[in-house]
């Protein structure tokens, strides 16, 4: 079983958001980066579980600059066998990233390609579907459970107000949502071993960008909270009706 896990880095949730260069760039000064939780907790761990049960290899891939190596090493510390980093600038479009992953996957002939359900910074939820289309393989989004028997996977996925259960044969791609696996914390041995595992840096292929950031803005400031006396719920109901107009 050859498994590929796409890992990205994102600012920690508690990051204070600000912009640079006339609001055309995200200000990375002092930002703490983490591995995207969906990639780390669910996608990577489920891939490792499959490898432990069935044998094979788990490779991670990241598209980004050398600064991402810290996050990549964490993936190796959790248990991936090797890693690929496509040496690309920060903040490329989803299409650019997808193209790089698709190029590298062609060479690797992977049975399953794992994505997170979305990155928690740009919330794109696009790259998995793009890569699947570029490789002409099925894509199952928001997988919350996956079992594999021979070459057939049974997957539960989140849909509006419920779950869908389906079968699909390898090769395919999926995006991982909560439930697919349980978070693993890297141990000392894993961290030591990660230093010696291969991290192959490869050049990107050329891609013409189709989408670019024109500018960033902060959401309009929230008006102060209107406090209502805990005894007077009629007042709340009246405000929800006549002021907020939501009931």
């Amino acid at each position, binding site marked *: 079983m050859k498994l590929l896990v796409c890992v990205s880095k994102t600012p920690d949730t508690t990051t204070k958001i600000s912009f640079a260069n006339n609001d055309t760039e995200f200000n990375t000064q002092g930002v703490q980066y983490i591995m995207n939780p969906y990639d780390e907790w669910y996608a990577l761990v489920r891939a490792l579980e499959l490898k432990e049960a069935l044998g094979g290899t788990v490779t991670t891939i990241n598209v980004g600059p050398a600064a991402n190596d810290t996050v990549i090493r964490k993936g190796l510390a959790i248990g991936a066998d090797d890693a690929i980093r496509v040496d690309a600038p920060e903040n490329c479009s989803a*299409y650019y990233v997808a193209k790089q992953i698709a190029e590298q996957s062609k060479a690797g002939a992977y049975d399953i390609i794992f994505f997170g359900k979305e990155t928690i910074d740009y*919330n794109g939820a696009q790259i998995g579907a793009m890569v699947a289309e570029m490789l002409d*393989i099925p894509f199952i989004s928001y997988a919350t459970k996956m079992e594999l028997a021979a070459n057939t996977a049974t997957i539960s996925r989140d849909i509006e107000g419920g779950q*869908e259960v389906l*079968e699909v*044969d390898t090769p395919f791609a999926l995006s991982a949502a909560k439930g697919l696996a349980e978070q693993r914390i890297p141990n000392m041995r894993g961290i030591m071993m990660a230093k010696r595992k291969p991290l192959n840096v490869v050049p990107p292929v050329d891609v013409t960008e189709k989408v*670019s950031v024109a500018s960033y803005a902060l959401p309009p400031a929230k008006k102060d*909270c*209107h406090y209502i006396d805990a005894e007077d719920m009629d007042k709340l109901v*009246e405000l929800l009706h006549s002021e907020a107009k939501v009931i």
Partner: protein
Amino acid sequence: MVLVYTSSPEGQLKKSAFEAVTYGYKAAQIIGTEVLALTIGNVDNAGVLGQYGASKVLNAAGADSFDSGVYAAIIADVAQKVGATIIVIADDSTGKSLLGRVAVRLDAGAVSGVKSLPDTAAGFVVKKNVFSGKAIVDYNISSDKKVISIAGNTFPPEVVGSDVAVEAAGVDVPASRVRIKEVNTVKGTVPLPEAELVVSAGRGVKDPGNWGIIEELAEHLGATTACSRPVADVGWRPHHEHVGQTGVAIRPNLYIAIGISGAIQHLAGVNQSKTIVVINKDPEAPFFKAADYGIVGDLFEVVPRLNEAIKKFKAS
């Protein structure tokens, strides 16, 4: 031409379909063209999409169960056939597995979760919330064809016309590589991502046996129930109710948060709600900073009182 793909789970068009056509209609007016709607599979009463501005409805029969590869091929083929330059999809679970595929097929730029009509003054610019609602980006799509998915509960459906004819789309339906075994949806309540009114509770409720007053409130309002993550993790509430960064992201008109502290990971999934009411006994609870209306008090006293007030209001 603007092409809107409207999904139809179990053969039914939902509010998100009407929102998408309304959006497509307005976008078409901006660039001076028409909007066509596309449905896939067996759909009840698809002609109703004309009411929201579709000049025609196309239907691709023979693909009743969802496979992102098959659906994307159909959408892209129809887009080519009718010469669509803008393709609109709802940003729901279906849209999320389709957007990227359709974009690749059409060699188009794509933006997901769009919350504004296109600004064509300088290019083709659409807005999207990023960093879980903590910032807004203006994206410029520079390719000839553009594929966008629109955020839910953002563009209220508007009736502008009447029913139109439904025609066969006349494109090939490729064979599916996905075998759907079961579809289990909660019946009788509006699913969280579509709900306009949401009543949510957290660890402050203390015990799963105490949820009666929360459910009663939801029932009086016709709201869907939600919860914070720890409450789902310990099994007090079902997992599909968990909202936040790792759970469902929602944007209802009204979000009532009861006994929830307002941790940043919780806020990430709910801070785009239009009106937020917070009920918490701790005046320092961080949630009050994100609230429109705040009630400092014991939920076991406040919620029953609120239930009475709503009953009275509904009766009047």
